[in-house]
């Protein structure tokens, strides 16, 4: 009996102390972590919409999307985080488009688990810069091994065709979703 009490008391005391300590630390860390997250999203938004001066989250839809504004507070487009399957795992990216959803302004890969040194090239500028001023209608296409001839095409990375195509597919999927929402009459 005495042992049981001793055992219970030990674990309870450790638990209480641990909980107390962690809740205090968490109180200090939580706002900082939230700030980092927000700064990260904001950074990505302004990277894919370089002309934007401010941004606002759209609350009328059930997915994450941001409206961006220029210095006169006029809406100039959207920044849409979207994800899909890559070669090895999930790829999450942010794509910036103009108001009419017909032209892409910029692209940024946020999270990926592609092959280091190969599939990870989709996060680098030579590839992502191809999306700047890219025509997105009817969709984004891709070519292999040669510079694109059409205005809506990007060139895939040698040896990382699958990762490159995955990015294109994710962009197309996200834009299609946006178009569908817009066509259904929801105010964006």
């Amino acid at each position: 009996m005495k042992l049981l009490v001793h055992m219970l008391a030990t674990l309870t005391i450790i638990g209480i102390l641990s909980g107390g300590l962690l809740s205090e630390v968490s109180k200090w860390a939580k706002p900082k972590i939230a700030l980092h997250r927000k700064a990260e999203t904001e950074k990505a938004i302004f990277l894919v919409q370089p002309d934007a001066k401010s941004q606002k989250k759209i609350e009328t839809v059930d997915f994450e999307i941001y409206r961006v504004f220029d210095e006169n507070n006029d809406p100039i487009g959207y920044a849409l985080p979207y994800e899909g399957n890559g070669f090895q795992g999930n790829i999450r990216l942010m794509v910036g488009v103009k108001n009419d959803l017909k032209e892409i302004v910029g692209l940024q890969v946020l999270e990926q688990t592609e092959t280091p040194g190969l599939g990870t090239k989709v996060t680098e500028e030579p590839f992502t810069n191809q999306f700047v001023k890219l025509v997105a209608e009817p969709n984004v296409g891709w070519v292999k091994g040669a510079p694109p001839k059409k205005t809506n095409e990007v060139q895939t990375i040698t040896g990382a065709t699958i990762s490159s195509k995955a990015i294109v597919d994710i962009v197309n999927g996200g834009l299609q979703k946006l178009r569908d929402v817009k066509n259904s009459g929801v105010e964006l």
Partner: protein
Amino acid sequence: MKTKLTLSKEYIKGLWENNPVFKQVLGMCPALAVTVSALNGIAMALATTFVLVFSSLIISTFRKLIPSQVRIAAYILIIATFVTLVDLIMKAQFPSLSKELGPYIPLIVVNCLILGRQEAFSSKNTVFRSVVDALGMGTGFLIALFVLGGIREILGSRTILGLQVLPDFYEPWLIMILPAGAFLTLGFLMGFLNTYTERKKRLEREAILKKHIKPISDTPINTVEA
């Protein structure tokens, strides 16, 4: 009971003789998973050392108060507290490093190195001795992870700590920053280290034998009938 080591020996044994990775083969998950670069290795080892030292401190202080029937549960609680602490601090202060190490920081909880030291050392030794032991083990872990991460980074991305050390014409071996590269590097390192220590031991043995025993016979012993 073994004779007590001096404090400095207590520290040094973790670096080489009882190196957690190369000798005890503990903490393999972080040692293999995060060592794609030297910096990642250092960060992981420092986080682990922090948890190890503070857990050892607390556990050796209260070692006589914790009933042995629930000691493992108590140890895990204490370790998990410090791991969560590290995780929160890293997320708040070093967000990019925390992102790089990803789930492997919370996984320090299940690193056998930490629980192993509590069970084998802190629960039986004084506070000061336990902390010295934890520091030694942590340093040993740091050395191992730095060497692993360094070799993989040099061969796999031709840099060390972000600085380019190999010339441009050297084509990086991507395999070294893939999981396979971790196993290859660790295997080779352990192979070389074991060869070295085995040879040293053999030479010592032979020296002792030569001193005390004279050869009985030169003819080989017949083990199989022809």
